[in-house]
């Protein structure tokens, strides 16, 4: 196809928008990283000198070891439990037709479509009445609300890809439901389970709203602690907040890179077939 001058200019304009966006995004991340290693930084492109003291400061001041332990506990529990609840449910949803299946499907779609802060406030109220909010269990339960449906919706197409004759054969050879799962389905579903759980992991590390609404002083995850640090900016040097932000970024992005080995970036957004 022959391209006119107008089309070429249009193409250049579109790419300029992309480049402008990416440059600003990388500069935003870069300035946090540079600031976290800088000594004094006033009217220059780069700080006067470089140091790692802000990391030691942040490590002690923000009680990062405790926060990292809580984060690992919450994320670990959420990944494990959403897999345990989600995968069997997805299997049943993929393999059986039953009355009210459409309604059940809608039930699983809703927590993914309604933004967390909308349902988080009534949910936190219920969890406070049940004396669960403020504890690590409250945080875990709150985070499971979007992740269980997420695992279900991701796993359904993976289950549908498996030939049902494989399951029938296992049944013929006398495998019960338990053995069918542990010895046939889970090995066959490993790629899907891995993708779903890695995405749950990344989403839970970054899940601010639900954790923020349900966490107490001892059950804060990294992202909530970062919020409080930025909120109280001025109390501590800005560089130590940025040091904490870098710790958060590294934690998230390492897992994102691992997850991207198994999923396509567009899958992070589209969640499920529409």
């Amino acid at each position, binding site marked *: 196809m022959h391209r006119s001058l107008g089309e070429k200019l249009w193409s250049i304009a579109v790419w300029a928008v992309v480049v402008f966006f990416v440059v600003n995004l990388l500069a935003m991340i870069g300035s946090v990283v540079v600031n976290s290693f800088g000594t004094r930084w006033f009217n220059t492109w780069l700080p006067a000198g470089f140091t790692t003291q802000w990391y030691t400061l942040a490590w002690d001041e923000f009680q990062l070891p405790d926060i990292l332990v809580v984060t690992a506990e919450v994320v670990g529990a959420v990944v494990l439990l959403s897999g345990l609840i989600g995968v069997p449910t997805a299997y049943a949803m993929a393999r059986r037709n039953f009355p009210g299946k459409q309604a059940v499907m809608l*039930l699983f779609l809703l927590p993914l479509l309604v933004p967390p802060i909308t349902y988080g406030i009534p949910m936190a109220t219920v969890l406070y009445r049940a004396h669960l909010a403020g504890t690590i269990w409250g945080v875990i339960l709150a985070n499971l609300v979007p992740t269980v449906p997420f695992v279900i919706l991701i796993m359904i197409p993976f289950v549908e890809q498996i030939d049902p004759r494989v399951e029938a054969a296992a049944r013929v050879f006398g495998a019960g439901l338990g053995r069918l799962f542990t010895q046939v389905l889970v090995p066959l579903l490993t790629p899907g389970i891995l993708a779903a759980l890695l995405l749950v992991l990344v989403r839970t590390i*970054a899940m601010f709203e639900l954790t923020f609404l349900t966490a107490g002083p001892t059950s804060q995850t990294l992202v909530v602690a970062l919020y409080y640090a930025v909120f109280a900016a001025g109390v501590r040097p800005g560089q130590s907040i940025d040091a904490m*932000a870098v710790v958060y970024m590294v934690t998230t992005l390492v897992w994102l890179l691992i997850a991207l080995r198994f999923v396509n970036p567009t899958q992070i957004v589209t969640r499920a077939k529409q």
Partner: protein
Amino acid sequence: MSIATMSLRRRMRERGLDAVTLLVIPGVVFVLALFIYPFLYGLVLSFTPKEGGWLANYQKFFSDSFLYDTIYLTLQIAVPVTLLNTVLSVPVALRVRLLKRQRLLTTILVIPITLGTVMVAEGLLTYLGPRGWLNRFLLEFGLTDSPVRLIHNYWGVMLSLVITGFPFTFLLTLSYITGIDPALEQAGAMLGARARQRFFRILLPLLAPGLAITLALAFVQAFTVFPSAVLLGAPAGPTRVISIVAYQAAFEQYDYSLASAIAMLMAGVQVIIIVALLGARTLVFRGPASTGKG
């Protein structure tokens, strides 16, 4: 025992209810207990105010300009940013779909979504601040005389929603555009349609349903903006969004009933906008986007 249970079991199985079907129960019970029940509980709670009649919370909200203005303030942020992100996404996605190696770009763009709004707020505070690189650049090249104020106001929140929202709308739009069969556009080109005509007469109608969903999801996210409105905006003034007053009612005034009412209003506005968008979608021509036999 055996005959009765056997026949029951058989009858259940005929309706598709066997042991495998029962595996949906944990998932269903979980969502009912932690999503549906709290929502209904909040709805009832919103009609049982601390004092006054059953509508007292809603009356309070709509008689106090400090409260009802938040709907307007939130829309003032959410509507422009949703439109901007979606309108920008379409031409960019149209270009990117032609690329063979999209992976690097999509990976870079998924980063801000993954980092989340808190991290983006902290990043923009450093980057857009008076001593940040952006103002450094503007001053150095003489584009401005004094640092431009982009944080702790409306623009800070706006920019944070572009940084997290544009990649979201772009990746969604890209997934819809790649679902459109390129043969349809080629056929248009062969019949002499120019690029502009091909876009408005072929691609846009096919993309419309996907765009309606993208707009709805992007709007709902922008409408519930919270951390960046607090950290990067002016939470007492122009960026006093509705989620801030809902949060304050619950966790600063401990008025869970009023907080639930605000959350219900928040959900109400979202539902109105989504229904309007999806309703508009059906007004536009809908046809199969991928090749079929039909």
